[in-house]
């Protein structure tokens, strides 16, 4: 899919010169700014926490976009992780926050492996729609078996303890917030490193020419499966954080609208861009909160229209626009600045 992320394949190796250092500086500034949010604008803390949780899930979708695949059902792993956490705290009240997170990610990883083993045999339409089918299956299970899952009302995720301490609401929210920031930086960095690793490179070649991979004696299925596992686990981390922030999990976590939202944010931020996933999620959440007052009824209509506009007119998304601007600036400074660093 050369159009959605035209400058994503050759990356990692060419980052030299002044652009990357400027980019690293901007990233550092943005992270510091985020970390200061609870002190500067405490009213925004919850909102940004939700945006970061979503951003991690969007990162999962972004990973798959690097291989040219789109999944319309990744909310499945988001939801499985959230429900795993909720079941854990229900059977083990006051479980540690890390334990809840691990249980969620483990649930996402196991289901990701099972679903992944099946869907990595497919590409394109089948890949996207089979993922959607799996998420719809899980959604109807959640709705039907209400004596276990609480049906449409969902179940509560009671507040986990932190290092053995039962915290008050304010301090717990602060802990979750900084956990989210740390996970964003850590997992974002890890994902970038993974893209540059041999298996990550093979994974991204699925987009450009899969048959050649097979001729080299490499298994595209195995590479896609490892990428799929990574994406499922990233969604799991996001789902777990979201559930801990909200304190309740409902089947809405797995509903196709949630998956669509993830794909939308991934394309908005810049398909295939790690930073774009989080920038997209932040912008999306902030706009959503302020727009829902007067556009609640037509929110999906707006998203759909905006998605069309991005795909048809700005296929690089926000990061594509930013890169275009930065590229113009650096071209003025250096005649030979690398254009394809993000």
């Amino acid at each position, binding site marked *: 899919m050369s159009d959605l992320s035209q400058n994503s394949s050759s990356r990692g190796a060419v980052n030299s010169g002044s652009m990357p250092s400027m980019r690293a500086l901007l990233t550092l500034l943005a992270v510091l700014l985020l970390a200061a949010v609870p002190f500067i604008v405490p009213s925004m803390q919850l909102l940004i926490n939700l945006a970061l949780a979503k951003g991690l899930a969007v990162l999962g979708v972004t990973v798959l976009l690097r291989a040219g695949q*789109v999944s319309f059902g990744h909310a499945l792993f988001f939801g499985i992780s959230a429900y795993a956490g909720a079941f854990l705290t229900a059977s083990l009240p006051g479980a540690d926050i890390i334990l809840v997170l691990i249980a969620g990610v483990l649930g996402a990883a196991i289901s990701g492996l099972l679903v992944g083993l099946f869907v990595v045999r497919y590409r394109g339409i089948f890949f996207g729609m*089979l993922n959607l*089918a799996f998420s*719809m299956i899980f959604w109807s299970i959640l709705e039907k078996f209400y004596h276990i899952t609480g049906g449409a009302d969902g179940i509560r995720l009671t507040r986990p303890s932190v290092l053995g301490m039962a915290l008050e609401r304010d301090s717990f929210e602060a802990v979750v917030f900084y956990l989210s920031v740390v996970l964003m930086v850590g997992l974002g960095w890890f994902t970038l490193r993974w893209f540059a690793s041999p298996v990550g490179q093979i994974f991204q070649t699925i987009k450009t020419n899969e048959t050649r991979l097979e001729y080299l004696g490499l298994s595209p299925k195995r590479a896609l499966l490892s990428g799929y596992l990574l994406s499922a686990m990233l969604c799991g981390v996001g789902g777990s954080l979201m559930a801990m922030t909200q304190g309740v999990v409902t089947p809405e976590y797995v509903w196709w609208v949630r998956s669509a939202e993830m794909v939308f944010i991934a394309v908005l931020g810049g398909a295939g861009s790690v930073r774009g996933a989080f920038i997209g999620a932040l912008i999306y959440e902030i706009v959503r909160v302020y727009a829902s007052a007067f556009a609640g*009824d037509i929110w999906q209509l707006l998203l*759909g229209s905006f998605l069309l506009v991005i795909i048809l007119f700005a296929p690089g998304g926000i990061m594509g626009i930013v890169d275009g601007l930065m590229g113009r600036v650096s071209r003025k400074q250096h005649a030979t600045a690398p254009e394809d660093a993000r």
Partner: protein
Amino acid sequence: MDLTIFLLALFDGISYAALVFIVALGLTLIFGVMRILNVAHGSLYAIGAYATVSLTGFLLSLGFAPVLSFPLMLISAVLVGVLLGGPIEWLLLRRIYDKPEVLQLLVTFAVFMILEDVQRLVWGTQPYFQASALQALGNVTVFGVTYTVYQLILLPIVAIGLLLGLRFFLRHTVIGKLILATTEDREAAQSIGIDADRVFLFTFVVGAVLAGLGGALASPTTSILPGMGADMIVLSFAVVATAGLGQIEGAAVTALLIGLGRSFAVYVWPEVAVLVPYLIMVLVLLVRPQGLFGTSVARKI
């Protein structure tokens, strides 16, 4: 399981399969010709149902006979196809035929999101129910089981008629042969003077009409509520994928298989009834990744 329940499950399955097949037929026709999976197909189905209910309710309130709801179904289906399907192909899809598959999928998905909200804006969130067409035809008793004529006789006849009609149309009429030629090789077809743009527009409108017709025919048998489009696109995709994308006759067989599987599950193990179509799909695709009737394509290097 005694005979009565067996027959009930059988009849349920047949009438359900007929409805799903009509929708899946449009989906697989569009894919077969244009190589685009139209995710918005589910919305067209839902809008067809809403339009029928509104039109019928309006005419009945004016004092017309309930029999009039049958032509109204056709009218709503054609309205959906021409007023929605036409512009979608003409304004959007035409720009993206040379783009990657995933992008095309995203575009139709965006249309789906837009239409889901449009439905809610026009018809609200309360469920609609309009069964005058169902009642107009009365009941029939087979081996002691009473069932509606509409579901047991009319729906299967319409489905079989559409299948045979489409087969005849594609193989024995000039327009049908133009469509097949364009499907085979778009460039070669254009070089001998076929207007491929018009062929695509026509195909998409026909496919959209079929989606609307499926919704119109479904409207007397079920309550119409938001979310029915999302369910239907996934279900009809399951049918089409199990059959093999673009396989018209295969879709009929698969629709019957999935419809019967689901209706028997309703009586045997109701909790999993919703899952049966997907279980069938997953099982078939595990063994035959190209679908029951699909042929594997030679890869280009």
